């Protein structure tokens, strides 16, 4: 198994009191699976993805990705680990506004430093070509449509060739046609061996995904 969650709990403490976002989640996901995490707002979808991606830490339980238990890692180690193992895609794209599309894609390679500097640009261009926005490479994100920006975000997530892609509501801000294209991209990635987990409200995704995980009030119901 590539991803293994055991007895995962996450409780947030707020001024209004404690709030359990995830309760006793046990989940395993295999390599190359395309999994959709669905549920209502506040059901714990984003929290689940955050814990798998090492963005947040569980209150209890364990998270293992590719055999690495990440719940005990430091912030810095998590950043390094993420850089090589996880690609993240967000609802609002989160591209850096002062970098061009090409530079946004090159940035994870720059941080990780695995590729020689001379190879980063060709790889970024190839990834942009793969997601269909290579002609926008030298534009700033602001000049692109929402769908194009999300494609760039996917290319950026693939920059260091991670085994896992986590996408939190990747189509939530896109029209249906564009959303379909983006889901198609994810399907292609999963088919090529990358594990893809998306948190989504989309109803018509059964045709592209391998498995659905339903969350209700922080508990996996099926």
């Amino acid at each position: 198994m590539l991803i293994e969650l055991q007895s995962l709990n996450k409780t947030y403490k707020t001024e209004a009191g404690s709030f359990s976002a995830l309760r006793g989640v046990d989940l395993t996901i295999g390599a190359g699976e395309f999994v959709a995490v669905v549920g209502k707002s506040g059901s714990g979808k984003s929290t689940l993805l955050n814990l798998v991606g090492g963005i947040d830490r569980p209150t209890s339980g364990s998270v293992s990705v590719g055999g690495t238990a990440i719940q005990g890692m430091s912030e810095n180690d998590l950043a390094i680990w993420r850089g090589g193992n996880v690609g993240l895609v967000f609802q609002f794209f989160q591209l850096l506004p002062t970098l061009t599309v090409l530079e946004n894609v090159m940035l994870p390679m720059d941080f990780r430093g695995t590729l020689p500097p001379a190879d980063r640009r060709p790889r970024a261009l190839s990834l942009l070509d793969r997601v269909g926005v290579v002609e926008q490479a030298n534009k700033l994100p602001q000049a692109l449509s929402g769908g194009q920006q999300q494609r760039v975000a996917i290319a950026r997530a693939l920059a260091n060739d991670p085994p896992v892609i986590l996408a939190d509501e990747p189509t939530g801000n896109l029209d249906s046609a564009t959303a379909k294209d983006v889901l198609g991209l994810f399907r292609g990635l999963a088919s090529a061996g990358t594990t893809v987990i998306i948190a989504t409200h989309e109803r018509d995704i059964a045709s592209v995904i391998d498995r659905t995980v339903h969350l209700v009030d922080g508990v996996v119901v099926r």
Partner: protein
Amino acid sequence: MSPRWRKVTRDFWQERMRSGLVVAAIALGIAAFSAVLSSYAILDRELNQGYLATNPASFTIRTDAVDRELLEAVGAQPGVQSVEARRAVSGRLKAGPAQWRSVLLFVVKDFADIKVSTIAPETGAWPPGTGEILIERDAFQVAKTRIGQTVTVKLPRGEDQTLRVSGGVHDVGQAQARMENVVYGYITLQTLASLGEEPFLDQLKILVSGDRFDPVHIAEVAADVRKLLENRGRPVRRVDVPDPGKHPHADLMGMLLLAISSFGLLVLGLSGVLVVNLLTALMASQVRQIGMMKAIGGTRSQIAQIYFGQALLLGVAAVAIALPVGILGGRALCLYLSGFLNFDMTSFAVPVWVYLLVALVGLVTPLLAASYPVLKGSGISVWEALSDFGVADRGFGSGVLDRALAGVGGVARPLLLAIRNSFRRRTRLVLTLLTLSVGGLFFMSALNIRTSMINTLDHLFASRRFDLSVSLGTMAPLESIERAVAKTPGAVRSEGWIATEGFVVSAAGSASAQSSGAAGLHGGQEGAGGGHSAAGPAPARFAVLGVQPGTKLLKLEISEGRDLLPEDVDALVANTALAARYPQIRVGQSVVLGMGPAESTWRVVGIAREAFLLPWAMCRAPTSSARAGTCAWPTRFGWGSFSRTPRRSTGFEKRWIKTFKERESGRFRRAVMPRAASDSTSTC
């Protein structure tokens, strides 16, 4: 360029308004800092080079008439490189149609052969002929004359004489004439004779061979020369040893630059606080981006590098702007101060170390200022950053203060919103308040210093309860002066005082040798050349004022002990500067003072608080019934007559002086009106 560094430059440009403010703030501080630093480096070099180029005398000995034989004997003395005879004579010079100014005439035997303490001809003729005078370039404004015109000069023993102004010279060793309100003139022995003085020279200006900057060596040579003179039966009236190689006004310049540099550093500090504030705001606006960069693999140090790079860029921009501005400012400051201290600038070249230090400070300051917001901002977790909690750690409402503010009511909602918003970002609030407070602090400090100076001067002048003091050139019976004053309309009260010089004799009977100048009642420095007494060869002298019992015209502010009482005979009141200099001058203790050839013991009864003045002491003037014969008063200052008039205009006082002079022209030396001008005493 990697994407990271592209982000640095593009963010700088995107936030150009905010970046511009930060750059302006740093540039302001750096410009002030570099202006002061460069001017200090330039002035220190130029002042000393210009001064040393005049071959300043290592020491000056005052004796009686110097003849050729003595000059040759001193010149042959081991350790003496050059010796030259000079004389300085004080007198009066009529400036303009009716205004008299103090004049200090430097008498030179051979203007073509000046080797020590040289002066440089600047304009007009050189050397001056008989009946001609050269005037120091800065003194033309005081003398209100020009080359080719004539001035009237009167020396104590002579009559009014007219001299032709034949040229202008530059004497680096003299203070700015305008500041001293003195005319410096240069004449020959023949001209001195025409002014009614005996034509002799009484000073030996000596330049030592070997190490010119070794005070011990100079003191040894001075002692040898002194012994030589005494062996030949020549009196040694005084030995002046200035600090070797140091311009007489170097300390003054240092003080000025210290004051300016203090403000420069304060501005730099203030700009640092501003940078912290602005960068904190910048980091707050970048929180999501920081979170995203961490999410895609950026470590804390990699992200911190980006923002430190941005701070470095701010520093580079600030230095690029501030350095030329500061160097230009430094030049302007140099020009102003060189005029103020009366020396010429030959080069504005700024040493390399100044550029390096300014660049270092300019680059390090924003980095230091950025360290807190950058380290705090880059340390934020991805989850916090993407949740937009920002660098504020927590939202408003979680703290005790927040809840207390939430309970505030009874005011309009917009005001409530403003109040609560003010406390939402507390670090920023603290920094803003800190910036405003520090700015206010500097502003108030400057105002306080100004007010304090004015109040201190007011206090000082309040202790001098007279409008006019008149110094006489020779001793005169008090009764005759009082008669002359009484016959001159306008004076309400007058007192005769004696002013002389004294020195502290130690318990072992030897003079305490500390550097000091002889001070007049108004803190001015008497004597020519601006040097101070020698360490070792001559004791430090200070002014001693003998006043009439129960004086009404001088009421000092006593900080310790008491004032003089009418029945006091051997009591002494010292000012704070004198008490600070000598540990034996304490209330209740006795001190042996040398005044003239005699020594006498005095009881210290009080210490008077006085700011800005040189050391001086006050005691009862000797009378036939009090201490007659216990101390011999030299005639250098003669009797001083101090008159009090009702509050009237300076014009009235000048008319009074004119009338008085007509009666006592033979003895009149000079008059000082301590309150005639707000910034300096006025001399007639």
